[in-house]
């Protein structure tokens, strides 16, 4: 029997009927198996797996009805048509055959034309079934693979975007996604200088497409917060990145909260999220913080605005944020949960230390179903707990800040082609920020580096006179000359920068900046006197040196005035606020 030949099992106790049927089937090209009772039919079926069964109803040992039920069970997903051979006429008996799993009837006397028509009709159904079955297997296989890939993607995603897994005492959040991937993110981290950054984001759409944008957002948030960047810098960077990577129609509604634990205030930037609430114990909602900005990822960098609103945050205050999935949660009657309902829950429980559980209960009562149409995020910041734990955190930071490189020198020699095109400040700043004990000094160190470098380049190497910058016209020609002289730079020009770090005690150290340039120097003794005596009208220029002197422990010119050395001192027992 060739593999593509369709095989038929005849189960009939009537030998002469079987003979006739076998002859008819052989003429049509079918392979034929025969059984003269139900039991034999069953054993031949399980061994030979025929494609079609022609079944007599009344047979000794096991009748056709029972044999059919068992054959259908054995066939499982495979479609095996069972055609009853019958001269039964009563409707009741025919119905029994169908109930047992029969698919059709063939009445005696057999007719070749009818037999051929029936078998070919079932052959088409059977082929269709084989195809459907194969496709079903393929889809199952595909689905299995997809789920597996999704599982891996989810792990990667969770590692990059530890949304809501920040371990900060005093922040409670409800994050409930309608798909495996969540378009809502909650991020929070301590700032190196003390204080906390918290961000809630809600990307357009749901599931994986919405979640993708959360990865860069989260990397930027954590990376920059840890390095001591400000809310403004972080938001500008996130906006720039999202604008670049997201399609025009996608954006991220977000709220950025900068908690200043020293001044007991919060700086809030809200771009497209529902009003945040400040709840004061005993008073209820005392402030609603409206969205005053466009969401992230829409505006170009030059139009982006990171200005914040500042609010007092007392011990006992609660600060609550919501994604619009909360406001727009629908109940079975099609009503929205709404901002008013949240507010009234908060007011009702104004004497509790936390309203979180009350709001969550109210949301669950309201929806009354597991069906969710949007990602839902609700975050409560509890001022007293945050303020309490920040002290513990700072103690831990003392120890952590002393890690990283402690005793080192870094130097860079810049020659003409570098001086023309290269800005060395980011590299230095990056290296300095690898030292945890310096992270909270970021903006001061940046100021010192940038002032020293522009002095070395502009006044030293290029020999520009800062007096030029006293009035607006001179200011313009100063920069024109700067450009010209840079282009004509001679081959011996250089700026040599070295930074050395030394520990001066258990919790303190010195950073020694030394800048040497190829310029001819100047009579620094007279200049310093002038600066110290504040006798000059400095106008647009000269702000640099006094600024450095105010930040640094020592400031001195060496050599011919072409070398400057600045010592900056840090001490962990001071809390620096930027």
């Amino acid at each position, binding site marked *: 029997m060739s593999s593509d030949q369709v095989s038929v099992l005849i189960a009939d106790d009537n*030998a*002469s009927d079987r*003979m*006739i049927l076998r*002859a008819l089937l052989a*003429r049509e090209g079918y392979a034929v198996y025969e059984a003269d009772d139900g039991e034999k039919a069953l054993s031949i079926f399980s061994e030979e797996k025929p494609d079609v069964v022609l079944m007599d109803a*009344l047979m000794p040992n096991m009748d056709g009805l029972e044999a059919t039920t068992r054959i259908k069970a054995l066939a499982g997903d495979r479609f095996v048509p069972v055609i009853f*051979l019958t*001269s039964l006429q009563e409707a009741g008996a025919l119905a029994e055959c169908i109930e047992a799993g029969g698919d059709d009837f063939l009445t*005696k006397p057999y007719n070749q034309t009818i037999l051929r028509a029936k078998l070919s009709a079932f052959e088409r159904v059977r082929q269709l079934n084989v195809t459907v079955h194969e496709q079903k297997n393929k889809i199952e296989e595909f689905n299995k693979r997809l789920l597996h890939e999704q599982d891996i993607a989810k792990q990667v995603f969770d590692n990059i975007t530890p949304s809501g897994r920040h371990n900060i005492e005093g922040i409670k959040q409800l994050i409930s996604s309608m798909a495996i991937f969540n378009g809502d993110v909650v991020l929070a981290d301590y700032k190196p200088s003390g204080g906390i950054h918290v961000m809630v984001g809600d990307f357009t759409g749901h599931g994986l497409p919405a979640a993708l944008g959360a990865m860069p957002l989260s990397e930027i948030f954590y990376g920059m917060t840890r390095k001591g960047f400000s809310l403004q810098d972080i938001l500008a960077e996130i906006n720039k990145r999202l604008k670049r990577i997201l399609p025009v129609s996608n954006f991220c509604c977000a709220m950025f909260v900068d908690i200043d634990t020293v001044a007991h205030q919060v700086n809030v930037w809200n771009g497209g999220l529902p009003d945040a609430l400040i709840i004061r114990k005993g008073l209820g909602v005392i402030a609603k913080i409206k969205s005053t900005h466009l969401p992230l990822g829409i505006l170009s960098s030059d139009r982006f605005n990171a200005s914040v609103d500042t609010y007092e945050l007392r011990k006992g205050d609660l600060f609550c944020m919501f994604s619009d999935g909360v406001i727009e949660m629908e109940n079975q009657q099609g009503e929205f949960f709404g901002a008013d309902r949240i507010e009234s829950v908060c007011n009702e429980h104004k004497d509790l230390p936390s309203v979180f559980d009350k709001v969550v209960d109210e949301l669950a009562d309201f929806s009354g179903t597991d069906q969710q149409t949007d990602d839902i995020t609700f975050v409560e910041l509890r001022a007293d707990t945050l303020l309490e734990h920040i002290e513990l955190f700072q103690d831990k930071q003392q120890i952590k800040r002393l890690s990283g490189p402690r005793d080192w020198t870094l130097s860079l020699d810049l020659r003409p082609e570098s001086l023309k095109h290269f800005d060395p400040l980011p590299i230095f700043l990056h290296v300095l920020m690898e030292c945890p004990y310096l992270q909270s000094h970021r903006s001061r160190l940046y100021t010192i580096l940038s002032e020293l470098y522009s002095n070395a380049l502009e006044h030293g190497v290029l020999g520009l006179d800062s007096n030029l910058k006293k009035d607006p016209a001179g200011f313009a020609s100063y920069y024109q000359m700067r450009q010209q002289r840079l282009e004509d730079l001679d081959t011996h020009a250089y700026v040599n920068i070295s930074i050395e770090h030394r520990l001066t005690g258990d919790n303190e150290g010195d950073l020694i900046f030394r800048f040497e340039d190829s310029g001819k120097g100047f009579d620094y003794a007279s200049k310093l006197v002038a600066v110290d005596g504040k006798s000059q009208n400095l106008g647009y220029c000269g702000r640099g040196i006094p600024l450095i002197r105010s930040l640094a422990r020592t400031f001195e010119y060496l050599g011919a005035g072409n070398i400057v050395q600045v010592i900056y001192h840090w001490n962990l027992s001071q809390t620096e606020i930027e």
Partner: protein
Amino acid sequence: MASLNTDMLAELKDIMEDDFAILVDTFVSDTDKRIDVFESSMDMADADALRKAAHGLKGSSSNIGAERLSKLSADLEVAAKEMAFHIAIDLIEDVKQEYHLVRAALLELK
């Protein structure tokens, strides 16, 4: 009404080719056995055995073109089902009579 449908038998001969003789022998030996069952089941008043044998003969005789024999078997099947033994006893006689005619005609065709 003739005992055999001649058109149908001609077709059957064509289909069965050389096996036609075997088919006739098989039908005859099966039917002989069934007639024995008719009589023994009447003796034991076993309506179910009678019904099954009549049902079998109904089918096999229709397939071989013995239309009247098939019709009589069908009547016998009904009588057995209704346990009308007094009707069955007459029908069995009719079936036996018709079978003799059919057998003779078939053996002639072999």
